């Protein structure tokens, strides 16, 4: 067994192990360290002795033993650990039951994504403790020095301990509000990976895979939460378009111009099945609606076959849940297709999205389509100054050049 294989199996179950130990010892840092310790032992034992029958069971048992040793050795350690030792007794061995372990993981997710923690800390904690990524890897993915990320993690763990952020699944009346934070963290991780993957930075696609893994896992843990299912469907349907999303030279290819034969049919099928599951449940929410919008796009073999009427109707529904100018901008893009660019332009002009590059890019496209070319040109210029993403920049530059060429033809 290769050490990379050990690492892969280990990462799969490290979140569960940290979660179980955190409940057992009431100390997140201890849980994390001891699971790390178990990893070192796994690197030594597994290649020699083969994979244990239950890798999570092996890790939890090994980490728990290490934790008990540590607690015994450091008798002066903090009161909570001693209490926990008294509570459970040092010799007691808990049966490794799947059910409670899954609950532990959910508890850990809700703790990592607690709204009293800064969003950047929520993301870092989730990737470190649930996804089992190394601090070094998380730092690289977010383009910050490792020391900065390490400090962010320590500060967050200290706040959890000092402020006594509870380690539990929120009661049902609080669950929807709290679940939104968990979903937002996963969606953020996905977007960070997805948006940047079109640019020049490498290695950040890992974030997309981590987000998909977390979303899949959350659906396993909470199959009855439709927004969770909606989020997974949304991520799958967006990810399905990745191969068509950038031209060989790295230019972003807009949805309407993508080569749809490059879309991943397996991911689409999986995403659409989940969207259907949500439709049957009929308890819509923002992620489910966004997934449905992407499912409608996936249905169209050619861009001109898109059911724009359905898409505009879904955006209307989305606006009820999230009445933001960004959603209104996306709706306007669909209105341009369903009705007319001039109608869409009227809608766009009302949105106060001055600092957002896409606002200017959409406005420029619409102005060009209604023949207001010089205004379109300055809108493209404005858009170009507002994004640093290479793929987006290249698309804007290309559109700008096409526009100038068209203007020259008209002038002759």
């Amino acid at each position, binding site marked *: 067994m290769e050490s990379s294989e050990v690492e892969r199996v280990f990462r799969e179950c490290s979140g569960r192990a940290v979660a179980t130990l955190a409940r057992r010892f009431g100390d997140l840092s201890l849980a994390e360290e001891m699971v790390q310790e178990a990893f070192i032992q796994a690197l030594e034992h597994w290649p020699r002795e083969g994979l244990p029958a239950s890798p999570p069971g092996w890790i939890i048992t090994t980490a728990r033993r290490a934790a008990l040793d540590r607690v015994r050795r450091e008798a002066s350690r903090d009161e909570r650990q001693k209490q926990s030792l008294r509570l459970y007794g040092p010799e007691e061995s808990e049966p490794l039951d799947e059910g409670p372990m899954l609950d532990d993981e959910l508890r850990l997710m809700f703790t990592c994504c607690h709204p009293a923690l800064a969003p950047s800390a929520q993301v870092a904690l989730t990737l470190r403790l649930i996804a089992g990524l190394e601090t070094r890897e998380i730092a690289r993915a977010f383009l910050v020095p490792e020391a900065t990320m390490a400090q962010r993690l320590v500060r967050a763990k200290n706040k959890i301990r*000092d402020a006594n952020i509870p380690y539990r699944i929120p009661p049902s009346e609080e669950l929807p509000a709290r679940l939104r934070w968990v979903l937002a963290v996963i969606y953020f991780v996905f977007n960070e990976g997805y948006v940047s993957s079109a640019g020049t930075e490498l290695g950040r696609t890992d974030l997309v895979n981590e987000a998909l893994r977390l979303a899949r896992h959350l659906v396993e843990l909470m199959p009855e939460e439709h927004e969770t299912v909606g989020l997974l469907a949304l991520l799958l349907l967006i990810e399905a378009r990745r191969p068509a999303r950038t031209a060989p030279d790295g230019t972003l290819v807009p949805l309407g111009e993508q080569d749809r034969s490059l879309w991943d049919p397996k991911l689409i099928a999986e995403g659409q099945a989940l969207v259907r599951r949500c439709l049957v449940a009929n308890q819509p929410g923002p992620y489910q609606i966004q997934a449905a919008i992407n499912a409608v796009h996936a249905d169209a073999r050619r861009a001109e076959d898109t059911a724009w009427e359905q898409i505009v109707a879904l955006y209307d529904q989305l606006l009820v849940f999230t009445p933001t100018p960004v959603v209104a901008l996306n709706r306007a893009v669909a209105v341009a297709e369903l009705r007319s660019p001039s109608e869409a332009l009227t809608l766009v002009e009302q949105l106060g999205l001055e600092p957002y590059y896409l606002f200017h890019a959409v406005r420029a496209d619409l102005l060009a389509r209604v023949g207001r070319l010089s205004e379109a040109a300055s809108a493209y210029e404005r858009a170009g100054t507002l994004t640093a993403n290479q793929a987006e920049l290249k698309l804007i530059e290309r559109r700008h050049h096409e526009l100038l060429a068209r203007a020259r033809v008209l002038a002759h």
Partner: protein
Amino acid sequence: MNQYLLSVHMVEGAAPPSPEVMQKMFADVDAFNQVLQKSGAWIFAGGLQPVTSATVVRIKEGEVLFTDGPFSEAKEQIGGFWVIKAKDLDEALKWAAGATRACGAPVEVRPFQEPAP
């Protein structure tokens, strides 16, 4: 049980609200305090005079030194506070939500080092 400080942050020198608004605020805070006391979460609370009434005391070269005015020159100052008992941060945050609703100013929640007596 843990102890938390809920401090009320106010902008010093900001125009005071109208008498009607003040009246309602006092009534709301009173009502909130009663709920807090009945629940057993109440430890202590109080409203503070403006920072212009504050004095900073420090030791300089072995001498006690008094300085007129607040320690921090910040515009936002603590206008009052509650000290409460709660089993965890979620419970403390719930009380803080009630507190900010009653007093109409942002409330900072900060854990004590010591558990509740």
